[in-house]
């Protein structure tokens, strides 16, 4: 069964079609990239999948469950996690707290137990700390656990965002321009990192990226968007030769 299935998804902003007739089918463990010029509607698609926006038309189902109309927190709890184009960490909170917050949906203790710090509270809180620290250690961030997250260097902030997303225990991970602001060396490391977390956490990954080097090397399939419409879809090497894609990226070829 497909992990994510978007059928004919259309979204309008006050009459302007930001995304129209978008279709996507993600199989388990796939790594798919979305590319396209600025304003093509890539991030809008992420916002539609995660419930930040509600699609005007069309359906999106996650592992067979329709998710259009659900709140972002409910969708995340189902198993979709994401990062953001411009890092959105909980800046004033510690690295550990950033990851702990992402455990919100899995807490079973009631507000009354939280109030008294009794019952299931102790055990679950300790589990959350344990799991968060294990995850940070796994991503080599445990040394920074008590740092205020805004003080981390840029690259580590990006990694922490991924750690935080993984803490929600997703099946599907959406990465919004994970390589933004990175130099070529860092991009190579990031590519290895993305492949590695996919393997370790058994993830399906959908990513938006501008760095062609990255998408061409790690994505198994690409979607090209322009003005809200999917203009091409296929293997990276085919996309590179697609005339419509070249036109969008390089301008019209006149002969």
């Amino acid at each position, binding site marked *: 069964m497909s992990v994510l299935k978007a059928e004919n998804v259309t979204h309008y902003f006050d009459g302007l079609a930001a995304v129209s007739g978008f279709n996507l089918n993600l199989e388990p463990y796939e790594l798919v990239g979305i590319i396209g010029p600025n304003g093509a509607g890539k991030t809008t698609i992420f916002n539609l999948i995660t419930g*930040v926006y509600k699609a005007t038309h069309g359906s999106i189902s996650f592992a067979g469950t329709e998710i259009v109309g659900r709140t972002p927190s409910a969708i995340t709890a189902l198993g979709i996690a994401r990062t953001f184009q411009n890092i959105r960490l909980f*800046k004033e909170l510690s690295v550990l707290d950033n990851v702990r917050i992402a455990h*919100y949906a899995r807490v079973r203790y009631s507000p009354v137990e*939280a*109030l008294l710090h009794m019952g299931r509270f102790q055990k679950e*809180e300790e589990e959350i700390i344990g799991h968060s620290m294990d995850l940070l250690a796994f991503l080599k961030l445990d040394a920074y656990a008590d740092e205020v997250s805004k003080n981390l260097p840029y690259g580590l902030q990006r990694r922490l965002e991924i750690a*935080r997303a993984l803490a929600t225990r997703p099946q599907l991970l959406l990465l919004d321009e994970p390589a933004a602001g990175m130099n070529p060396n860092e991009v190579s490391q990031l590519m290895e990192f993305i492949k590695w977390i996919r393997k370790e956490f058994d993830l399906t990954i959908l990513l938006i990226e501008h760095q062609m080097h990255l998408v061409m090397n790690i994505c198994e399939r690409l979607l090209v968007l322009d003005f809200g419409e999917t203009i091409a879809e296929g293997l990276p090497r085919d996309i590179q030769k697609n005339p419509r894609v070249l036109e969008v990226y390089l301008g019209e070829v006149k002969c």
Partner: protein
Amino acid sequence: MMINTSRIKQFKENLETKRWLLPALLVFVFALSLVIQQFELLDPYVQLIIMYVGINIILTLSLNLINGYMGEFSVGHAGFMAIGAYVASFLTVKVFPTDMAAWLFPLAVIAGGMVAGVVGLVVAFPSFKTRGDYLAIVTLAFGMIVKSVIENIDALGGPRGFLGMEKLSTLPWVFFWVLISVWVIRNLIYSNFGRGVLSIREDEIASDLMSVNTNHVKVLAFTVSSFFAGIAGGLFAHLLQFINPRAFDIIKSTDILIMVYLGGIGSIAGSVIGATVYTVLLEVLRPMGIWRMVFMPLVLVLLMIFRPRGIMGLREFRWFVPVRDMLASRLWREKKAGT
């Protein structure tokens, strides 16, 4: 590594022993407050000021939950206080038998808090859709509505105010309620719910996308906050023995705001310090007459310039934070090193 580990262990044990001192101290202070009240050991004026400090601590804590921890901007907090004050007073004066009023007083205060808590939902629901300046306007309007509703209810004395309450707020009672509010808010902050509240302050959208049910968190935060504002109102009414709608206008809300920002946002210790400093300073400066109202705002202006986060902004005393949270990463490392 070994040295390091044992040091943490020692530190933890140290913290845990110190933690026994606190409840012991509190029991002692509570007993002391009972003795003071029984034998009138303190000047009634001083007692009155201490009780004002206590009531202001509860108000500051309750508003800090919304403005400091959750990062919303509520400016109508006196409205919740008014609801608590009127409900509790109405109960002790008009509903409860007069000779039983002293015994039923705690119930009246709780009832006031609960009604205020339920009304808190009125503000929680708009907060799902709006935030920042817009939510501030909503709360401002809410404060005005409460005031004008009370002014138009004859059974509550309308604009003339309501009286007939006995002086039921005593040092031990105020102290008891301060403890309850500190304890409840601390426990909530150091829980899943509290982390949800903080994440809303930091980035509401990211918070929602990290599976935090922001609507639940907001409902709970507004309810708890207005409950305690209502409690403070009930205590206030039975201390002053007279309330009128003007006592709960925007000026009162502003006073609470000042105490929150003076003490420091997102801090329980800050709330206690802010409320104490502000209340005591205003009393001490009474001989300055009208200049007091020049001096205090000046203090605030200087504070905002040199210490914009207030005295304790986003900080807490170490002994006040649960050991589990305080030493989270270190205990984890110790455990890893042990196995």
